[in-house]
């Protein structure tokens, strides 16, 4: 039973990353100026990902919780650390990713508005450009994922 749940946990993680990969590819595609027509196809990709990712995410979390109970790991710090890390990544992605998507979808749909948009100059502009970039999201997600995986496999705490 435990092994089957672990198998399901791994499969749901795979599906979760597949759907997140679709979202990641859209975040990069938005910066290639897709234009008002092509943006509709990208919206459709987002809709597909927003259906699949939560389903996979729920299975992932549920199997993880049950595995934690069956393995008596809820008293171990590695489990809480990885959960905390996942939550932090989720909040950061939501706080940064959502406005990024809103802004770039609006830009692509309306090229006139894009031309009118003032560029933010100076240090604040540079910082915004750094944190408001798909490469930052990808780096944050990948490093976070690697640390969570390391915690789960090596159980160091």
């Amino acid at each position: 039973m435990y092994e089957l749940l672990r198998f399901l946990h791994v499969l749901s993680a795979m599906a979760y990353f597949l759907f997140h990969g679709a979202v990641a590819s859209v975040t990069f595609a938005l910066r290639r100026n897709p234009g008002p027509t092509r943006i509709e196809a990208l919206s459709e990709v987002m809709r597909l990902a927003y259906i699949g990712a939560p389903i996979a995410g729920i299975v992932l979390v549920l199997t993880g919780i049950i595995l934690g109970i069956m393995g008596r790991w809820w008293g171990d710090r590695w489990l809480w650390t990885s959960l905390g890390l996942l939550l932090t990544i989720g909040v950061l992605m939501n706080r940064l990713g959502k406005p990024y998507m809103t802004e770039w979808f609006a830009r692509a749909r309306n090229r006139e508005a894009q031309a009118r948009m003032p560029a933010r100059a100076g240090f604040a502009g540079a910082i915004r450009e750094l944190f408001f970039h798909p490469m930052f999201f990808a780096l944050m997600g990948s490093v976070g994922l690697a640390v969570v995986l390391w915690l789960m496999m090596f159980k160091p705490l």
Partner: protein
Amino acid sequence: MHKWLVFLHVLGAMGFMLAHGGTTAMTLLLKRQRDLDHMRALLDLSRHSGPTFGVTLLLLLGSGITAGFTGHWWGEGWIWAALAILVGITVVMAWSSRAHYHRLRKLLGMPYFEGNKDRPALPPASEEEISAVQATLRPGLLAAVGFGGIVLIAWLMMFKPF
């Protein structure tokens, strides 16, 4: 050392799935598109994930092959079966990419791959020709082969049944 290799292998597998997100979305959505520009947007989405796909596949294969030696698994059947399934999936996907998706890229007036060479864009074909190729797409079958194969490989690796 062995545990680190398995860690890298799992990390490579996760990255491989992430890199496939755009292509999977393209495969699932392309058949029902009627607007030619929508089709171009989806085909481009898939094309740009190529470098990440290559790096993660290298990490996945490199760590997997080395872990096979450090874990003394090359004498067992499951590892060969998993490798054979991976090769099988790759062959099906590569064939489908050439027979359908690069053909569509060509007809849509986009740069495409043919005869082992990257080719520049040609003038777009007629909508009838494009629709004819689009009708041959089998997204459900490809998804079943791709994800079904991954499920089988994961099962073989985790349960090592033979």
